[in-house]
């Protein structure tokens, strides 16, 4: 619910604004401009096209909920550790306020749970860029670790969609430790002979790139997404080197040998499902599938 809906108007006069009533209503978000080709797109068209530019196929960033809807079968997602959250352990200045603000967009920077993808049971983790740019704090690492541990115990494959600015500096060394912790859980899942598919989305950087994002058996990426350890600005500033064209884009990183395939959003779900099937993951019977929609 919108925060302001709790604020009751003091009297009737204040409850409706004359100014608003006299101006013809044009929603701000009727049109969306493509940052790549500059085309003006009707927002409803853009949404219908899975937030991919109809002109140049630029993949707009989508949030965690949209990502879940894109991959999980409708109504099949059951969230784990939905309320698990971190705190200001270091007593870092300003972090409490930042957390409070970020929590308007979710509990933490990742949503984890189980679902079916084309009726194949799988564990799914989706990072949330709207929560402090998907930065990895203690709770983020814990949720991902638990998701891998759950997948290992239940002999399930796991799909992780990454989007992150890296480790969350307000949690200092404890956020760095999440890189080791999550990597340990990935290793156990891997040693159990189970499949881990990574889907890199824009942007995947820093401590997330240098841990679970690069540890998938199969690493997919969305077109044009930034995949980096040190981001382009860091390199330009510290090394004063001019960067090659398309440096650190999905295509570039694939050409360098670190990504298996760049996959358009339109075929992401069937591609993931195909990979799951090729690894012997069986769909459940239609009558057993959770269908709530």
């Amino acid at each position, binding site marked *: 619910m919108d925060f302001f809906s709790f604020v009751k108007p003091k009297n009737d006069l204040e409850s409706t604004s004359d100014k608003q009533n006299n101006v013809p209503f044009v929603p701000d978000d009727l049109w969306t401009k493509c940052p790549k080709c500059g085309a003006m797109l009707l927002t409803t068209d853009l949404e219908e096209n899975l937030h991919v530019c109809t002109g140049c196929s630029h993949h707009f960033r989508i949030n965690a909920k949209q990502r879940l809807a894109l991959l999980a079968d409708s109504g099949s997602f059951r969230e784990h*550790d939905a*309320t*698990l*959250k*971190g*705190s200001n*352990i*270091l007593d*870092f*200045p*300003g972090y409490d306020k930042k957390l409070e603000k970020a929590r308007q967009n979710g509990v933490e920077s990742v949503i984890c749970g189980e679902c079916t993808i084309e009726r194949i049971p799988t564990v799914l983790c989706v990072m949330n860029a709207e929560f402090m740019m998907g930065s990895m704090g*203690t*709770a983020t690492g*814990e949720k991902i*670790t638990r998701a891998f541990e759950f997948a290992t115990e239940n002999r399930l494959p796991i799909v992780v969609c990454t989007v992150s600015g890296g*480790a*969350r*500096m307000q*949690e*200092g*060394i*404890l*956020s*760095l*430790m*999440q*890189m*080791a*912790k999550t*990597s*340990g859980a*990935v*290793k*156990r899942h*891997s*040693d159990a002979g189970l499949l881990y598919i990574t889907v890199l989305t824009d942007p995947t950087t*820093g*401590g997330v*790139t*240098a*841990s*679970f*994002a*690069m*540890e998938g058996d199969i690493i997919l990426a969305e077109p044009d997404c930034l*995949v*980096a*350890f*040190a981001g382009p600005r*860091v*390199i330009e500033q*510290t*090394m004063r*080197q001019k*960067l090659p064209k398309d*440096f*650190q884009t999905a295509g570039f990183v694939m050409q*360098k*040998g*670190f990504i298996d395939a760049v996959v358009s959003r339109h075929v992401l779900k069937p591609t993931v499902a195909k990979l799951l099937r090729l690894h012997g993951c069986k769909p459940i019977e239609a009558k057993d599938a959770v269908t709530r929609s």
Partner: protein
Amino acid sequence: MTAYEKVMAARDSKKLTAVDYIAHMFGENFIELHGDRRFADDRAIVGGLGLLYEMPVTVIGIEKGRNTRERMDRNFGQAHPEGYRKALRLMKQAEKFHRPVLCLVDTSGAFPGIGAEERGQGQAIAENLMEMMTLKTPVLTILIGEGGSGGALALAVADEVWMLENAVYSVISPEGCASILWKDSSKAPDAAEALKMTAQDLFNFGVIERIIRQPKAEDSAMFESLKLLISRTFEKNMELPTDRLIENRYNRFRKIGTEHLMS
């Protein structure tokens, strides 16, 4: 000493570097081994074999260099992917021959450059984290100066992590933190304080097991006691069944920070 004074001490160009520790503890017995067998030999990482009393050990250090020429040669202790891959190669070798691994960490971070990115800096670090977690031989890491983020952690997934009393270990440099958060890198001393990056802070968080007194070059007794401490730790861990050793290592990282979570 304030946190930032410790940062400065950890970066002091006159302090001992990894090769000094290797020379003092292993002397002429140290044999350096080069290269990652894939791309190159990264001079920022020194690796090889040494003898700890009767026990052969694999030693891997990040070396900053002790003068300008050495520092250029060592890329100021900022490793490329091939450096982390060399380290992993030597660790796998140690696993094969069942000898313990000693890592000496002193780096401001993994190198942020075009070549490093092209050759998969993130992937190289990630692979080390994953493989070290289940390495079937004891691993001990000592932070002897700067512990800069992922570039340090790539050699610090160990059974125990120790720090020199004036070493620092952090997710980001105080300058980087101050310039991102407050758009002002001169506020680095405040950031150093806020990041809680000193050995004492990290000990309180359960991130390290031991704080070591700072040895001086001429202090051979100090090195001797450090050597003894290391060899006792290795002996203890060599006796553990391998599954137990790996289980302990997993749990060591698994529990860090979890007591502060809320649900």
